[in-house]
């Protein structure tokens, strides 16, 4: 991606929030939605345009779990480890996915296809254990369904 394009994109996101420092979290969310992660250049751009120290932008970007400073795979897998999912065996689902993809949570497969992450509750607790892949919710997951599920994403 070109530096100019990135700068323009970030500018337009900042404009959506009237360049309000108080909206920093929302701004970073929109940038992440655009690029799948927070590119370093984007953080610099945000800091300069808002007139906020880069250290502060960085501390917000690293404080919240939802942000990633590394590029992520084509499909984001989010395994819910909230309490409701936990008591219904979410850990075993996560372990099965880890084994299938040979990666740990927070990591991306070498072919950049999947990134595996965990989340604490997505509000579908009644359907636990829940796995979200590429924005699609899969409820009432079972360990023996994991393999087939992953094969659906090519």
């Amino acid at each position, binding site marked *: 991606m070109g530096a100019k394009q990135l700068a323009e994109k970030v500018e337009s996101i900042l404009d959506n929030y009237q360049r309000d420092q108080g909206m920093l*979290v*929302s701004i970073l969310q929109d940038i992440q939605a655009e690029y799948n992660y927070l590119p370093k250049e984007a953080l610099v751009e945000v800091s300069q345009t808002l007139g906020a120290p880069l250290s502060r932008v960085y501390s917000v970007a690293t404080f919240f779990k939802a942000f990633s400073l590394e590029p992520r795979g084509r499909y984001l897998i989010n395994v819910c480890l909230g309490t409701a999912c936990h008591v219904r065996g979410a850990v075993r689902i996560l372990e099965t996915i880890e084994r299938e993809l040979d990666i740990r949570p927070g990591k991306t497969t070498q072919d950049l296809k999947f990134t595996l992450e965990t989340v*604490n509750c997505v509000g579908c607790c009644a359907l636990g254990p829940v796995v979200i892949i590429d924005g699609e919710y899969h409820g009432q997951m079972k360990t023996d369904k994991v393999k087939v599920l992953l094969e659906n994403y090519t």
Partner: protein
Amino acid sequence: MVGKGQALNRLSSPDELEGIRKSIIKQRDPNKPCITICGGTGCLALRGESVIAAFKQKIKRQGVETKVDVRITGCPGFCERGPLVVIKPQNIFYQRIRVEDVPEIISETVLRDNIIDRLLYTDPNTGQKVIYEHEVSFYKKQKRLIIGNNELIDPTIIDDYLAVGGYAALSKVLFRMSPEEVIEEVKKSSLRGRGGGGFPTGIKWETCRKARGDIKYLICNCDEGDPGAFMDRSLMEGNPHSVLEGMIIGAYAIGCHEGYIYVRNEYPLAVKNAGIAIRQAEEYGLLGKDILGSGFDFSIRISRGGGAFVCGESSALMASLEGKPGEARAKYVHTVERGLWDKPTNLNNVETWANVPLIINQGADWYTKIGTPNSKGTKIFSLVGKVNNTGLVEVPMGITLREVIFDIGGGIPGGKEFKAVQTGGPSGGVIPESLLDLPVDFDELTKAGSMMGSGGMIVMDENNCMVDIAKYFLTFLEEESCGKCVPCREGVKRMREILTDITEGRGKDGDIELLERLSAVIIDSSLCALGGTAPNPVLTTIGYFRDEYEAHIRDKRCPAGVCKALISYHIVDEKCPGCRLCEKACPTRAITFVEKRKPVILDQEKCIKCGICYDVCNLDAITVK
């Protein structure tokens, strides 16, 4: 009609509001069949979207648009059985609907009044099919004052909310009550905050009103960090106007002109619907400048959180709203006096706000008839985990846990034994079988060592390990601690390490006492309530299930069969017919097939205890020891 130019829709007096309400109601024929389909996150996760699309398409194709309406509603709460479809006006209740069922529902039920048996709900206890929604046991004992409207309205259409009496409370407040009278009424209702602490709402408003400052802020807390709870999401998604109405009333009473909704980013639909609701309310002149021609101004912005539990805590939430990391600060500075940008700030939970219009409409005297002496009104719980009917339940305060879990929830699935119910989220604790007749209210749950919290109610059965649950919560809190104060940052970590040792077979005598001592210190010396309540899950599990801790420590045994280091899987030879399902599923080839009708053999050396064999076996031929 929203969206056809602002000037046309803007309401500038109570009479105009009542006028438009009348015309909306008049246009609607209460006897015209209406297919209501849940559009909440739960049902959408169960492929509800394609069901909705199929209904719309089929109705158009069959040319029956004039004979039947379709309404995409908020979540009625019975997520377990989704996608949910209710046919009005009879209230025929269909569950687990698939796209293939859609043509039949239209041709048989809607056009010919025939009931389709296979789509009905079967009561797990009586085995009987139930036709009407209000006869489903899950709904029968509920008192759905707050969440009940979810299924009557399309949250993206403000007219639907007006049709059920929406914004009447706001109109009453603005034109017939002084701010002081509003506060008095809320105080008289004894409404207590639904976000966890149970602080009296009227008193909070009064303090904020009296606090010195020209600018005051008002915030709605929709961070809902308690993992396992989702009632705030459902209200914000399913009936956002009721929350907005409560906020505007509060703003008038306190004297605020700017408000925020702080919502978790994991809730995209709630963000979307709240945004639509704000726009529509502005177009109608119910939000923004000169609301309903009263001269009162109030605007609301949405701010999305970044998935940090501590950001639900008031001072951390406000730090995050200011664009800073969400760190809590000491309690001696009250946010009602110095909160957001150091201005007096009033923060209430989503459900608290949603109670306000009800109290104003029905009056405090009516409201205080519901509940127990110290806890009035209803509470919405997220009833989840090992229970038959999972979903959202709204019950009057004072109902017993047993009624919620067994009458509404239909008991424990698979014939398993009930073990405990966890309330209050990571700050709460577990409650054992012996206390199931406890009435649910703020004080009783606290007495039991747990708390009301925001409303998570997680049911656990004999296959859940109490030490594992304690470790689960402490792991969660260790990660979510903002790290500012030492007792929480270091203390919780040490407790989690001890619990990990116990679950992995390294527990030693004295660990339980050490956990208790650490707990006392952390409770006394943490900066905010995250640390202050963090030991609760540990203390309650020790208190009620000490023998389970001892089994882990002394006998190196996990009685519930959960802690991996202490368990092993075994084939039950009498039950295993050698069907090879497990052999094929085993990722490490630890299972060997002998011959048909002979049990398979499991090699403990190769077994990684992933549990897949246990999951695929339909014959209970695999056990955990």
